[in-house]
């Protein structure tokens, strides 16, 4: 257990020491999105009867959780692979399960810290409610965990920084942006509505938003089922790769 806690602590320390980049910067980005989009759309758009900025804030919070959880585990792994310092965590007697749990929990924690930061600064600009707090917490954890474990996969798979950037730009960004952060999928043409239903991130954001406003595009139970299934599938894949030592133990 000490091995696990030390690795977790190291991963937390790693982002905490450069908190300006890893926490403050993404909070600022999310605030800019809110200022720009709500300024343009606030007077014209209501979604599910909710003012636009109040609709947007939960989406931005969840997007920040997801992107930062992914960024943390993936960048930590690729960086230690490229510099070679990965040997320091491969030589000790840490089990692959503990290895996985440490990276995922630390990355999810960064996601949650950034998400909380985004919530704190954007709450001033929007009329927020916390209709169903347990759903909020549940989806926050689920989203953080899911993208954290996806980040572990990406970090193990990528051999170079630009491969990781491709993963981020061509998979993570489209998935998070085309997921209903900025709109309800009912405002989309039929084709894109249907496509969105194949995006797991859509369910994470929709369920998370339900926790705030008590309304959503689909039932939160459906979103929960999709979220948990995806998390379990990705976790199983990550654990299998780690057990085999894929790209870590030659």
């Amino acid at each position: 257990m000490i091995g696990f806690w030390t690795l977790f602590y190291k991963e937390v320390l790693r982002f905490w020491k450069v908190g300006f980049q890893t926490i403050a910067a993404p909070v600022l980005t999310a605030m800019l999105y809110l200022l720009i989009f709500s300024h343009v759309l606030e007077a014209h758009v209501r979604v599910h009867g909710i003012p636009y900025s109040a609709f947007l804030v939960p989406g931005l919070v969840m997007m920040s959780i997801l992107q930062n959880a992914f960024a943390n585990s993936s960048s930590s792994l690729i960086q230690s692979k490229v510099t070679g310092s990965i040997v320091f965590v491969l030589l000790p007697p840490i089990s692959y399960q503990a290895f996985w749990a440490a990276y995922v929990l630390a990355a999810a924690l960064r996601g949650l810290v950034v998400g909380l930061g985004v919530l704190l600064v954007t709450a001033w600009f929007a009329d927020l409610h916390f209709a169903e707090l347990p759903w909020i917490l549940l989806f926050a954890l689920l989203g953080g965990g899911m993208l954290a474990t996806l980040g572990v996969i990406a970090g193990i798979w990528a051999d170079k920084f630009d491969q990781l950037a491709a993963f981020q730009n061509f998979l993570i960004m489209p998935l998070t942006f085309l997921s209903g952060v900025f709109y309800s999928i009912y405002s989309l043409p039929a084709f894109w509505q249907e496509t969105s239903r194949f995006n797991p991130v859509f369910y994470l954001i929709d369920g998370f938003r339900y926790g705030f406003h008590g309304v959503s595009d689909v039932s939160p139970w459906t979103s929960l089922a999709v979220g948990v299934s995806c998390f379990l599938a990705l976790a199983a894949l990550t654990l299998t790769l780690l057990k085999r030592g894929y790209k870590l133990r030659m």
Partner: protein
Amino acid sequence: MSVPAIRVAGLTKHFGDVRALDGVDLEIGRGEFFGLLGPNGAGKTTLISALAGLVRPDRGTLEVMGHDVRTDYRASRRLLGVVPQELVFDPFFSVRETLELQAGYFGIGRSKRRDAWIDEILDSLDLAAKANANMRALSGGMKRRVLVAQALVHKPPVIVLDEPTAGVDVELRQGLWRFIRRLNDDGHTIVLTTHYLEEAENHCNRIAMMKAGSIIALDTTANLLQRFAGDLRLEDVFVRVMNS
């Protein structure tokens, strides 16, 4: 009969088409000061990596103090300290943080005893003055010594050093050898690779010479020198073995 410090049997490893190890058998007794010599690409680092679980063999078994590195990896890794060949470091941390984290990975929690041991290692390796410096701020020789320190935090009975003196200036090299000798005197088994043959001659009680993934000579240093009567230095023996 006591269990040897290291036992390698039938070890084979390919990287694609490259045969890095070709059926290596090797036993190293407890308390030995063992030298692994051979030209670049002979397979020394691959052998060490297999022992540490960083490389997965195609065939063969490896044990550290009787513990299989695959099936009993927790025990075998706890008994082994490895100083890697590459000068790697984590730029996020200071020297002391680096050592505290490494101890933690091996299951050693914060305690007075741990801190005292870390202080002792820092002192012995002449790193005490740099304890709170960031790893990035250290010279190459200092980084090398931190790598040695990291391998020792969990007091492993078997210590493997892959070219510990490469790129280290003469004075530091002598200090490093003194320190490694002391570890050996204290009962640690030492296995090392080096390109400085006169250093191997001075310190190692037994030597294996590797070439193209195989061990082509294995004997006590004295016997190796004697076998080639007339050769006064290990360097001459090395050249003959490699060319035979």
